[in-house]
């Protein structure tokens, strides 16, 4: 299935993780429509991860995001 490429709509550290996931691990990224960007795990049994455009606390928020990616099978 087709995937978007992440741009400036998400912070740089998130972008680097997303690029690795979609380029090397079969994940998909979608930034269409009005909502927040969505990250689709390669494992179809794992739920869609929503990424905030402007995370409030970059350090802890990013770690929680990475933890969520790992729970969904991402190698980060």
């Amino acid at each position, binding site marked *: 299935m087709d995937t978007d490429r992440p741009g400036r709509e998400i912070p740089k550290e998130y972008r680097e993780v997303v690029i690795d996931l979609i380029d090397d691990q079969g994940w998909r990224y979608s930034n269409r429509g009005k909502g927040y960007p969505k990250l689709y795990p390669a494992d179809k049994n794992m739920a869609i991860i929503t990424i905030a455009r402007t995370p*409030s606390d970059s350090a802890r928020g990013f770690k929680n995001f990475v933890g969520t990616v790992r729970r969904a099978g991402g190698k980060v």
Partner: protein
Amino acid sequence: MTGYTVHLATRNPAGGEAQAELPGLDNFLDLLAEYSAAVAGGQAGWAATISVDSDDPRDALDRAHSVVLGYAEKAGLPHWPLVHVEILTDDEADRELATPTLPDLVSGPEIVDLLGISRQRLHQLRDNPRFPEPLIDRPGATMWARAAIDNFAAAWERRPGRPRRRKLDPAEQAFEDQADVVVASSLRGPRRLGDPVDLTGVDPDASTAPTGQAAADEVQGKSSRTSGKR
């Protein structure tokens, strides 16, 4: 105060597609913004990971539970049962994140270098029940856990030269002896396809059959006579 990372996950009891859109997740993420939240969801369930500060883990868990379920309802998420609750200190969560998700892997050529063996020997070793199974075994990509190879190398008794021949049990020895005699008799002269095999010296009772050495002596005598004629 200690920072805690709390993860709560729900599951749709009626089932559903995990990657089918679940309305309300964006709003849910906005409401949890001050808790450094990460959220995921679909028609199979939804989950949130948030951070809270507290002096007590039980209090942290109670607060996280109250915040997440309260905001989920406000965001319009389905009221599905909780199926997973986890609380870690932030330090412990950081330690988990620092742990690699893949073990240290080594390929066949790397094992050849590590053990100082040939590629052929590696193929032989794979038949050894003590040799580790590869973690990844796909055409063109076979990888082992480095730690498993290190353990094997530490316990591996290496003996130079050819392996010693296993001592045969009496039945196997008798069979071998008879086979030697048959081979020896077939070497006695030129034979054509269909010629009967000379079974002289072969005793159907294996225990009284001539030994392999006797047959070998017979062959040796024959070959000496043959070479003497030249």
